[in-house]
């Protein structure tokens, strides 16, 4: 019998860690229970692409042995799922694409390596939008992921397999990546916590690149405490990533105890304009009131260039994508077209057949905005507006500690509802994109329900203030229980 009354699959990492330490269960037993749960329940969700049963059980046995001999790492024996964008040595890494359907990396991403070194047990790899391009997990070569709260709805994207897995209690934590909201929006739509740290905080080595000036790895969890625990093990300088920042990583878990007294919370009026679903707005306003009741001060702030953030992103991100994805040529790895007439035909058909529709659209958009005659009007202009957007945040953070608002304009939408018009889908990221453009840490925390679907509270902090950001989220979770809610079918 465990210390916690909760079933083993419903426990957070912090709770499981106590159970392992007390000897209530072994990591092998825990791992087996979750692997069986994924096998039993993922048929309806399609959240996990690869289950690494043998590797997981071996890692769990090693963690149990390490614990017995007294040299267990901080995450010893704790289960985790990795988004299929992180290279895993010897385990197929598809990035949700036909292009990499047969790709077996010869090395581990730094994130994977560090979490394994801390003792975490990888259960498998999660589904995602192809090359992380999408906000609904509908662009995956391996099919849609269903939202555990309503199987007709999207779990968000691009880290939709990770968010659905954590919401369905397949694992307490899953890794994700966030280029425009790909951790935070899926977290909001599934009632989970999602954090994207400061640009450069977590190594991008071995993380398949989409838009290199925006991409950042992070965590989807059920509690902010777990997010702090795992982020602490992932973050830090890595000489193998040229944009990695050489700054010490604070003890994020210790910082969680910082009270809300005197914390200044910026509220952006435009976030509550007509584009926001009414029920979502009500829940977010109630969450702001809770922060205020716990001692925070709410301050009105202005981000005048907010409306330009989505267009700016949809120039910068496709431009970088078109450049990054030029490596997929059918020669060194990945899909290769059959019977090419010549080298040019090999390139064009490999890429035409290997990439899906949304990835092709972004490559074409990016190629267009970088092409002769259009570079100044689009790419250069977007980089200037990006500077204005970053300046807006700089000014606001002179006065407040965090900015709070909604994560997504609506709760989870129906699968197929937004696939006709790419721009409608892009507008899902309106509240999250600014943090990527400015390189800021940001997080989504569950803050209630609108029409029985989860709603997320979005928090943004200055560069490297992940600790303060998570402290606000944790203090909010001490006061609320939204993050413990679970869909009826996955209890």
């Amino acid at each position, binding site marked *: 019998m465990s210390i916690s009354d909760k079933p083993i699959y419903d426990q957070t990492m912090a709770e499981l860690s106590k159970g392992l330490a007390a000897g209530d269960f072994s990591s092998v037993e825990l791992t087996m229970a979750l692997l069986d749960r994924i096998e039993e329940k993922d048929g309806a969700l399609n959240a996990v692409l690869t289950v690494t049963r043998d590797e997981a059980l071996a890692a769990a046995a090693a963690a149990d042995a390490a614990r017995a001999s007294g040299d267990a790492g901080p995450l010893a024996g704790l289960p985790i799922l990795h988004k299929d964008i992180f290279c895993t040595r010897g385990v197929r890494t598809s990035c949700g694409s036909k292009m990499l359907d047969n790709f077996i990396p010869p090395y581990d991403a730094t994130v994977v390596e560090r979490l394994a070194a801390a003792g975490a047990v990888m259960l498998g790899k999660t589904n995602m939008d192809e090359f992380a391009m999408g906000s609904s997990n509908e662009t995956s070569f391996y099919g849609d992921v269903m939202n555990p709260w309503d199987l007709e709805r999207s779990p968000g994207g691009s880290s939709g397999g990770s968010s659905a897995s954590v919401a369905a209690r397949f694992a307490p934590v899953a890794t994700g990546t966030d280029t425009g909201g790909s951790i935070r929006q899926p977290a909001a739509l599934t009632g989970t916590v999602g954090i994207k740290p400061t640009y*450069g905080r977590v190594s991008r080595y071995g993380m398949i690149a989409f838009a290199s*000036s925006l991409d950042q790895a992070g965590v989807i969890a059920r509690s902010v405490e777990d997010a702090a625990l795992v982020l602490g093990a992932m973050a830090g300088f890595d000489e193998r990533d040229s*944009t990695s920042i050489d700054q010490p990583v604070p003890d994020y878990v210790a910082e969680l105890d910082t009270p809300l007294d005197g914390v200044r919370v910026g509220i952006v009026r435009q976030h509550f304009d007509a584009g926001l679903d009414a029920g979502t707005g009500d829940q977010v306003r109630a969450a702001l009131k809770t922060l205020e009741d716990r001692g925070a001060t709410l301050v009105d702030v202005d981000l005048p260039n907010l409306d330009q953030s989505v267009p700016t992103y949809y120039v910068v991100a496709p431009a970088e994508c078109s450049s990054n994805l030029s490596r997929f040529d059918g*020669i060194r790895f990945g899909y290769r077209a059959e019977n090419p007439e010549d080298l040019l035909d*090999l390139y064009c058909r490999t890429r035409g057949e290997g990439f899906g529709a949304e990835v092709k659209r972004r490559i074409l958009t990016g190629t*267009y905005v970088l092409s002769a005659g259009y570079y100044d009007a689009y790419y250069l202009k977007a*980089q200037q507006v990006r500077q204005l957007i970053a300046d807006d945040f700089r000014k606001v953070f002179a006065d407040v500690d965090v900015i709070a608002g909604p994560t997504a304009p609506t709760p989870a939408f129906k699968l197929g509802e937004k696939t006709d018009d790419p721009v409608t889908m892009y507008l899902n990221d309106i509240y999250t994109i600014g943090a990527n453009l400015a390189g800021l840490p940001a997080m989504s925390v569950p803050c209630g329900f609108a029409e029985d679907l989860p709603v997320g509270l979005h928090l943004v902090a200055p560069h490297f203030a992940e600790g303060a950001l998570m402290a606000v989220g944790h203090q909010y979770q001490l006061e609320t229980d939204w993050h413990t809610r679970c869909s009826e079918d996955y209890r």
Partner: protein
Amino acid sequence: MSLDKDQVQHIAMLARLKVADEDIAEACDKLSRIVDFVDQLSQADTSGVVPMAHPLDQTQRLRPDAVTEANDRDNVQQNAAHVADGMYLVPKVIE
């Protein structure tokens, strides 16, 4: 602004991407919508604004040009469709 078929074919060639004939109409339509949408950038006043080069104003770190990893060729080439004698095979490029 809307993009026509020839423009899309030209961009596709620059991107080394074959767009099937039956997909061209849809590609024109969706790309035009995206370009229309990002055109609102032209309304922003950016006179005198320095384009952002890095979100944290950092410059790219360089490393010494030294061998840091052992050659893992056989393992790496397992991911290639066509190799021979440790080399990648491509269609003939020199007659």
